[in-house]
């Protein structure tokens, strides 16, 4: 179906950050009139590639060819002018202005410096019409739901070339996770627009975490892993299991010592029970039971609802439905305080924005949760505090072992340990770890995994989220499988459970 010459060709793209090679020689092609999926897990280099394409990052090697001509894309504006438009998950428009203005701002039709409102509205209405949308262009953007705002963003990006008389206008449209917070009808509406644009010859690069959507709308896909290209396939030629295998790969396991570990079979009585807990736009209502001393691993792709599930159990987001019982008592879960009071602890995957206070010292960050629980009037006595902090710095081998060091200056692994220490000194009953091993070195990774095992042996329940299935499989008694914002299966770990079994469950979306 593809035309002979790609509209966009990226060859040997290299992008490096201090200490990390985010993209090493990636090739990427995009043909006119196709919808192309870019797939990959955390760290695959997806977002880096998109940022290189849209001019947010400058590339360290490789070439970009657009319409057969080699181009240099130095800024988002240059990308737009070259005919590459991007619509992000967060709508980058001005909600306070009308739809027509949002489509035209910066290039409003003027005569003698005076904006021709009538002409602008008319042209906006025509553009919207042409794309088969029913939107009142005079209404403020904020009066529309996010889904429609996203459509408007697409209309703006498509209309960019028109008034400048640059012929075809947008050649490449990048849609970066536009569907994350849309409901089914809204997604269909978006797809309709995408197909329409495709039929007009626009090349669309589509990123989504929802596998079903990829298979529904895309023609071809490119899969990245660890900054390299692992495959370019027609969607119809690659089934879901194959795709997931490509994305996750068979990660070489360097954590030999943990292989010896036998999971303890006897877990304790029920600690937490969630019934019908859910949040619109976050995760569909689910039931979950967690026992004392049990490690529950959550397996699923990025964006499958792993984090959303964890946040509901901690009260970080307010649920729309369902109830949570901890230790036989119902907990309201309207704020983190409720969960903390019931003995739940949560280490966010975003250490910097949701975990640490970078200006404070290691000591202060470690005692923060305990101190918050005690209230400001009852400071932890200095001697006891120093002893606790010293104990955990030693136990977790936090480096530098200086309680006065500013947390912002520590390495990722040590920051993660500080976060763990913060919650461990509160002696929680349930510890929720959201990607605790992401972005940290292999040694720290092994230490954290060993810690999880020993904590569970001491009777603590752990909810463990990790991108790598091996990691989940190794540690968990029970594995919750998520797909497309739903908890689709709950597998009891045993000899018959393998990574490919989990992969199949993710791919099929049901327990087999």
């Amino acid at each position: 179906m593809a035309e002979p010459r790609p509209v966009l060709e990226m060859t040997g793209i290299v992008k490096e950050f201090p200490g990390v090679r985010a993209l090493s020689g990636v090739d990427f092609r995009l043909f006119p009139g196709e919808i192309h999926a870019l797939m990959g897990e955390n760290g695959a280099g997806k977002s880096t590639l998109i940022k290189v394409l849209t001019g947010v990052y400058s590339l360290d090697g490789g070439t970009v060819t657009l319409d057969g001509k080699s181009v240099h894309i130095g800024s988002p504006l240059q990308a737009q002018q070259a005919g590459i438009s991007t619509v992000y998950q967060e709508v980058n428009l001005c909600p306070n202005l009308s739809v027509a203005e949002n489509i035209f701002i910066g290039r409003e039709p003027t005569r003698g410096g005076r904006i021709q409102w009538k002409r602008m509205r008319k042209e906006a209405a025509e553009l919207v019409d042409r794309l088969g949308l029913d939107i009142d262009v005079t209404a403020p953007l904020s009066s529309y739901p996010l889904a429609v705002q996203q459509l408007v963003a697409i209309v703006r990006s498509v209309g960019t070339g028109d008034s400048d008389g640059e012929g075809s206008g947008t050649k490449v449209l990048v849609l970066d996770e536009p569907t994350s917070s849309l409901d089914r009808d809204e997604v269909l509406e978006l797809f309709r627009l995408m197909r329409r644009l495709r039929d007009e010859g626009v090349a669309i690069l589509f990123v989504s975490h929802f596998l079903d959507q990829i298979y529904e709308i895309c023609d071809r896909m490119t899969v990245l892993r660890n900054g390299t290209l692992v495959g370019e396939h027609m969607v119809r030629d690659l089934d879901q299991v194959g795709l997931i295998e490509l994305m996750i790969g068979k990660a070489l396991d360097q954590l030999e010592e943990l292989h010896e570990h036998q999971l303890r079979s006897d877990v304790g009585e029920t600690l937490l029970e969630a019934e019908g807990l859910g949040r619109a736009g976050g995760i569909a209502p689910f039931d979950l039971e967690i026992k004392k001393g049990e490690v529950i691993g959550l397996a699923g792709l990025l964006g499958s609802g792993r984090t959303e599930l964890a946040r509901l159990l901690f009260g970080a987001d307010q649920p729309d439905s369902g109830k949570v019982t901890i230790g036989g008592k119902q907990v309201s879960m309207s704020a983190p305080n409720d969960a903390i009071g019931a003995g739940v602890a949560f280490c966010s995957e975003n250490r910097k924005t949701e975990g640490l206070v970078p200006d404070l010292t290691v000591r202060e960050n470690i005692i923060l949760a305990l101190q918050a629980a005690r209230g400001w009037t009852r400071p932890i006595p200095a001697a006891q505090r120093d002893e606790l902090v010293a104990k955990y710095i030693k136990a977790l081998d936090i480096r530098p072992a200086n309680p006065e060091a500013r947390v912002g200056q520590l390495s990722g692994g040590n920051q993660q340990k500080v976060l763990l220490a913060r919650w461990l000194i509160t002696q929680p009953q349930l510890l929720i770890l959201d990607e605790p091993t992401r972005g940290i070195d292999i040694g720290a990774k092994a230490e954290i995994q060993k810690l999880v095992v020993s904590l569970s042996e001491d009777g603590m329940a752990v909810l463990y989220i990790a991108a790598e299935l091996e990691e989940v499989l190794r540690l968990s008694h029970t594995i919750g499988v998520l797909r497309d914002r739903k908890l689709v299966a709950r597998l009891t770990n045993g000899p018959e459970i393998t990574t490919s079994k989990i992969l199949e469950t993710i791919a099929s979306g049901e327990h087999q």
Partner: protein
Amino acid sequence: MSTPSVATTSRWRALTHHNLFWPVAVLIALLLVNVPFTPDFFAIKMTDGHLYGSLVSIVLFGSPLILVAVGMTLVIATGGIDLSVGAVVAITGALTCSYISDQADQNALAGVFLAMGIGLVAAVVCGLWNGFLVARMGIQPIIATLIIMVAGRGVAQLITDGQIITINSEPYKLIGGGYWLTLPFSIFVVAAVVAVTVALTRRTALGLLVESVGGNAEASRLVGIRSRRIKIMVYMFCALCAGIAGLMISSNTSAADGNNAGLWIELDAILAVVIGGTSLLGGRFSIGGTVVGALVIQTLTTTIYTIGVPTQTNLVFKAVVVIIVCLLQSPKFRAKVFGANGPKGLRRAAAPAPATPAADAAPKMEVSR
């Protein structure tokens, strides 16, 4: 050129890296500027059992500002700001003086204490209102405190009936104009308030929680800090400090002037906090730094007076100081002017700035191998 020994270098580094180094250095420099013009600038004389001297008067005249700035420090540390303190100063002074002036015996201790109590309660109520708007209603601090800033002076004039109420009360005069143990009494008041504040923030966990809320609000919510309560408390405390400053100012002049008492003190206080090294973005705060910052401002005023520059240029100097301090705190300015390597003293502050983009980029790159 001789190379200094390693030991001295590191000691010098430790000294310059202390967070109070620059404020104190500026203060000392300002004080020294006076010496050529007033050779006995540092002299302190004993007259009638009272100590007199430029240093004493700097602290004496700077007292209200120190008080207001100390309260302001905590508000700024939570990421807020309080524009209403000047109006609160006026309201407290007006209420207290009008109550005292209604007394038959203005020297009666009970009456004076009651009057002060009324004034301070009013101040705390103002703080509660500000805190309520900021923490409960979620209104931006600048906007929320603007209300009392605008209306407060009207209320103060309403209380004094538009007049300047003069009183004649010996006990009340003590707070702002009296002497005790050879020193101005207000110095003791300031010392007490500063000591209480330091104790309140560093002996309890309040300081830690305030810094946490200002340093990372979302992380604070996720560790279960009740930031609303803390914010309300901090605004109330700030208003209380402003109230005490209001007592001091009205006591010093034995009069309540609803229109001019505490005029622009909020701006001076914010300036003092910034000079003292507390970032306007919130987080880490330093009460000591704020006290030094307030003294710098007062010394600047005194210096302009003693070196014979017309006093009216005071405000121009202040503007220049604000701009310099803010520019030096701006990472963008440092990057543009000094490049990657700042001048000696600024290197410490500049160092984290270039480091941050790299550190921030790391998690976004989603490294997992």
